């Protein structure tokens, strides 16, 4: 059974996703949780404390995803991590929509995000190195190509949902994963293609 504190954070997260961090008032969070504003103030003294609490939950979830790095040697490991990233960004859309708002009002939180995101980027780059060593990815055609590829993959993972929202496209996990695998596809070796075929992939890539 979730504690009142957890329920407040869940409600806040839900409202942040719906209206954006700046547009949500304490009264709304209290109503959503089903408690009084006084009770809410007992658990969190102000909105900043709630925002920080929500981001604490987010950081923990994000660190969990980062720690799932290379639990298996094959491409299915990346596929599993992509699913986790998708779930994360789909559930916490306000993270991106309010990104620059956060920089202005909560610089500490923003700084923390920056650290986690740079770790994510590093991880993608190192993963590509590993796949080259394993022989599922072709050797780097020319210096810097895989750094650029890692950066592109990071951009897609992070900003895929907002750009789909902007275009009015469907927000679907398989479409998201396809976008990533399409980027990697030209660099895969025959062994890489075999491994990719073994995991759930779009029909046009098989």
């Amino acid at each position, binding site marked *: 059974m979730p504690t009142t504190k957890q329920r407040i954070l869940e409600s806040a997260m839900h409202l942040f996703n719906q209206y954006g961090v700046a547009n949500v008032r304490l009264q709304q969070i209290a109503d959503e949780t089903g408690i009084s504003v006084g009770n809410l103030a007992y658990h969190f003294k102000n909105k900043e404390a709630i925002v*920080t609490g929500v*981001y*604490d939950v987010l*950081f923990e979830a994000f*660190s969990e995803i980062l720690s799932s*790095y*290379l639990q298996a*040697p094959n491409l299915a490991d990346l596929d599993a991590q992509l699913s986790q990233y998708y779930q994360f960004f789909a559930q916490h859309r306000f993270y991106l929509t309010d990104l620059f708002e956060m920089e202005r009002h909560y610089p*500490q*939180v923003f700084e*923390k995000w920056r*650290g986690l995101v*740079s*770790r994510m980027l*590093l*991880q993608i780059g*190192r993963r590509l*190195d*590993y796949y080259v*060593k*394993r022989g599922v990815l072709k050797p780097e055609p020319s210096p810097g190509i895989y750094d650029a590829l890692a950066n592109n993959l990071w951009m897609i993972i992070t900003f895929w949902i907002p750009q789909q929202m902007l275009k009015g496209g469907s927000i679907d996990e398989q479409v998201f994963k396809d976008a990533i695998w399409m980027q990697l596809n030209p660099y895969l070796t025959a062994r890489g293609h075999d491994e990719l075929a073994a995991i759930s992939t779009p029909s046009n890539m098989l």
Partner: protein
Amino acid sequence: MKAYFDIHPEAYKVMLDGINNLMLTERCAPPDDLAFIKDNLWLSDSAVIEHIYPLKGQWEVRLLFAHVYNPLQFLCRRIHAYACPRKAATHAGYMRRVAAKDQRGTLAVKIETLKLPPN
């Protein structure tokens, strides 16, 4: 805000390289790495014969493993060397009994199995 474990990007890079190497070194061996077990299965149907051989002033004990159905498939291994021939003979007997599948020595190589031509 909660205090989080943080790591310097350079240290994180080194750590990721370590994980990459770990995944490369601790992978499954190719199946033919253990082929010698399969290849040596015939040894379980072999007769063990001790062989004591004088070499460099000592009595060397060798065990000869010969396949009972195909005696031309055999393996000879040096086990130990003794200064005394009686001691070598005693130990060779023990070694043979330990190495043989049947301690009573019912598995034996017969001359007929060699299928030698009469001429």
